[in-house]
């Protein structure tokens, strides 16, 4: 049953979960004592940031699997690319919602808040990775290079995270945007459940997007290969047409 109905169910589930999230986040949950209703942005900002890391984690894992000779397969390269692209979309949205939230709290569109800065660096890091993926070259060579590039970026993440955190917490205490402060269970019950729902909904959406983006990559790969058989046939026919 891993056919079309499977993903359609997943798709409708994700949309339903997002709808419930919107209602809970915008209406049901109470406003924050000092941020008032701006806190409602958290219900999508935090899940977006969480899924971003999940996506880039999958890219790193798939790249490792591609590099290990035992598990080397085209599909890992395609999965790494698909997950990274979705990851960049989620990173962009995390930055967007973070910036809007910054505007409501500090009146400026961009604050050098530790988490936002790290996210911005992630955005540029993986944009570079995606740019590298788009360059031409023979498929196997390109796939191996993509995997190495993905790992070269991924091993940088903890360093980026640590250095930015030290840099920004020299002056003020840890970032307000931290989900630990936000997801703390003792906060008002409905807020906590809404936050959990948020992460669940966006993970479902991510899964749906990944499956279809992966299939798109598979299809593009197949169309490219299909062209290859034709090219070999034409190549061989070159002599018959008297290519003297």
């Amino acid at each position, binding site marked *: 049953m891993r056919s079309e109905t499977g993903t359609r169910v997943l798709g409708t589930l994700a949309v339903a979960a997002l709808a419930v999230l919107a209602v809970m986040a915008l209406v049901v949950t109470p406003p924050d004592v000092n941020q008032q209703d701006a806190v409602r942005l958290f219900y999508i900002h935090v899940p977006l940031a969480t899924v971003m890391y999940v996506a880039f984690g999958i890219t790193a894992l798939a790249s490792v699997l591609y590099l290990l000779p035992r598990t080397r397969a085209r599909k890992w390269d395609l999965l790494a690319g698909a997950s990274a692209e979705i990851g960049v979309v989620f990173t962009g949205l995390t930055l967007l919602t973070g910036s809007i939230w910054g505007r409501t709290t500090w009146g400026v569109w961009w604050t050098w808040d530790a988490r936002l800065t790290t996210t911005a660096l992630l955005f540029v890091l993986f944009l*570079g990775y995606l740019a590298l993926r788009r360059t031409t*070259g023979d498929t196997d*060579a390109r796939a191996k290079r993509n995997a190495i590039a993905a790992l070269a970026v991924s091993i940088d993440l903890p*360093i*980026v995270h*640590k*250095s930015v955190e030290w840099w920004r917490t020299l002056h003020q205490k840890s970032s307000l945007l931290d989900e630990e402060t936000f997801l703390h269970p003792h906060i008002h019950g409905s807020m906590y459940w809404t936050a959990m729902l948020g992460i669940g909904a966006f993970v479902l959406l991510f899964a749906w997007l990944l499956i279809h983006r992966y299939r798109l990559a598979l299809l593009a790969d197949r169309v490219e290969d299909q062209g290859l058989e034709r090219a070999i046939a034409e190549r061989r026919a070159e002599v018959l047409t008297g290519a003297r």
Partner: protein
Amino acid sequence: MWHDAAVMAGKDLRIELRSRVATNQVAPFALLVLVLFAFALDPDRGVLARAAAGLFWVAVLFCALLAIQRAFAVEATDGARDNLRLSGLDPAAIFLGKAGAIAAELGVLEVLLGAGVVVLYNRALHGPALLVVTCVLATIGLAAAGTLYGALAAGLRVRETLLPLLLLPVVAPVLLAATRASEAALGGSPGDGWPWVRLLGVFAVIYVAFGVVAFGPLLEESS
């Protein structure tokens, strides 16, 4: 392995000595960048002096980009790349050799830039131990990550524009850590600088190790 690395580094450095691109183009460029910063930041309001460490490392970053582009432009002719693969040199040694040559060049440039900062931005040097360690570790980190990304982008038509996009975000933590450590040294409170130096050390170790492992496949695959 170390013999091969020395052979490679020797070749790269000899190319730089003979072609004198480093001395005639990259070094003047480095000083030019310092002067441009001075134009951008009005010198007499003290901003320049305070930002000296940061500006120094931004200038080093730009020079690193040039040195890396140059190091791989030399190998860009497909004949040279074929010979390198056929040469039987161990890829890890090629990586260490090339990174070593770039590190050496950057070291010289840093001394030059250091003098430039002291003279142009009239910042006296303090905490020399911290400064030297910071420069050494940051240079190793930049050379290793730079050589790795130079190989990643090598052989691609768009490598001139792709290399900065790929490399600069990755070495952003080096810029951050090196600047903070240098400011701690210049500001006379070296104690604050040492955690940043540890971070530079971690970065250098990770990217040298990753480069040694990844360079072989990269050399193979760059068409």
